[in-house]
């Protein structure tokens, strides 16, 4: 009885340590295979302390910009933003029709592969993530 308890305790400690170092947890990270010159990347980010995404880069594109799509009376416009905030204890959501990272002059990476993207956070610093490439436009959360 004593040994399993100890193992469980060690596992719990290890799990809690593994979380803390990055500070920002990324989920649902995906980038579209480029159909035109550019590709869009989306994810959800959470942080206990809160953080701010300052910039992004990848070898698979000439540049990466932080963008917001806005809709006014059904007319779509796209503007660049300086940074994106992850509220403390909350969630930053990048999704079609809202915030996205725009990979400008993207390489022809294909659906099913993964690309490395580096995000620069105000607190967590530079973090490199492996991001799944999905089919062009297959970026919405699925409802079926």
């Amino acid at each position: 009885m004593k040994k399993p308890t100890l193992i469980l305790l060690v596992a719990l400690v290890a799990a809690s340590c593994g979380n803390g170092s990055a500070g920002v947890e990324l989920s649902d990270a995906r980038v579209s295979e480029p159909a035109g010159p550019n590709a869009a990347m989306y994810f959800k980010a959470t942080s206990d302390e809160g953080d701010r995404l300052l910039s992004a880069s990848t070898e698979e594109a000439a540049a990466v910009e932080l963008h917001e799509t806005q809709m006014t009376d059904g007319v779509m416009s796209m503007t660049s933003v300086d940074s994106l905030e992850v509220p403390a204890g909350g969630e930053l959501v990048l999704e079609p029709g809202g915030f996205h990272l725009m990979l400008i002059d993207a390489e022809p990476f294909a659906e099913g592969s993964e690309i490395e993207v580096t995000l620069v956070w105000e607190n967590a610093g530079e973090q490199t993530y492996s991001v799944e490439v999905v089919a062009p436009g297959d970026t919405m959360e699925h409802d079926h």
Partner: protein
Amino acid sequence: MRRAALLLALVVLLAACGGALATDELQGVVVDPPQPKPSFTLTDTSGDPYDFALATEGKAALLYFGYLNCPDICPVHLAQIAEVFDQVPDVARNTEVVFVSVDPQRDTPDAIREYLDKFDSSFVGLTGTLEELKAAQEAAGVPLAQYVGDGEDYTVDHAGWVIAFAPDGLNHAIYPFGVRQSAWLNDLQIIATQ
């Protein structure tokens, strides 16, 4: 109770008499009364003139104004429609998808073709001069595309919705961005095959 039953009968009767298209089952934004198909001619990706009304006569048609540098919402609309085409061959057979690029400065016919082939090679791509594109947008009743920013990195503000025409030649519904896949699947079957 009798009154409710009578009302129900009336609704059923109205639905049955209301014409071929069951617009009450559509999940898109229903256009009431339905609007006639616009008339305009642009150039397709082979360089041939494309008369929208003539080319789509007797078929369902989905008309969308966009541009290739738009990485966010344009590909989502096209991917959603392409997915329905894959699932329901009857819809694909009876529906013409017409993508009009409103960015003639950057979007060459070859680039438009390559772009659309990523979704479905049957999708029609159109381009034209700024004047021709303006006429097409006015005919379709969408706000004119606005070119924002300097140099090569300008963006294009454009109508975010897809305009759906049934084989009867009328626009019965529009699809703003954010329509769920299940709604596309439901509506395209009604629009294309009823």
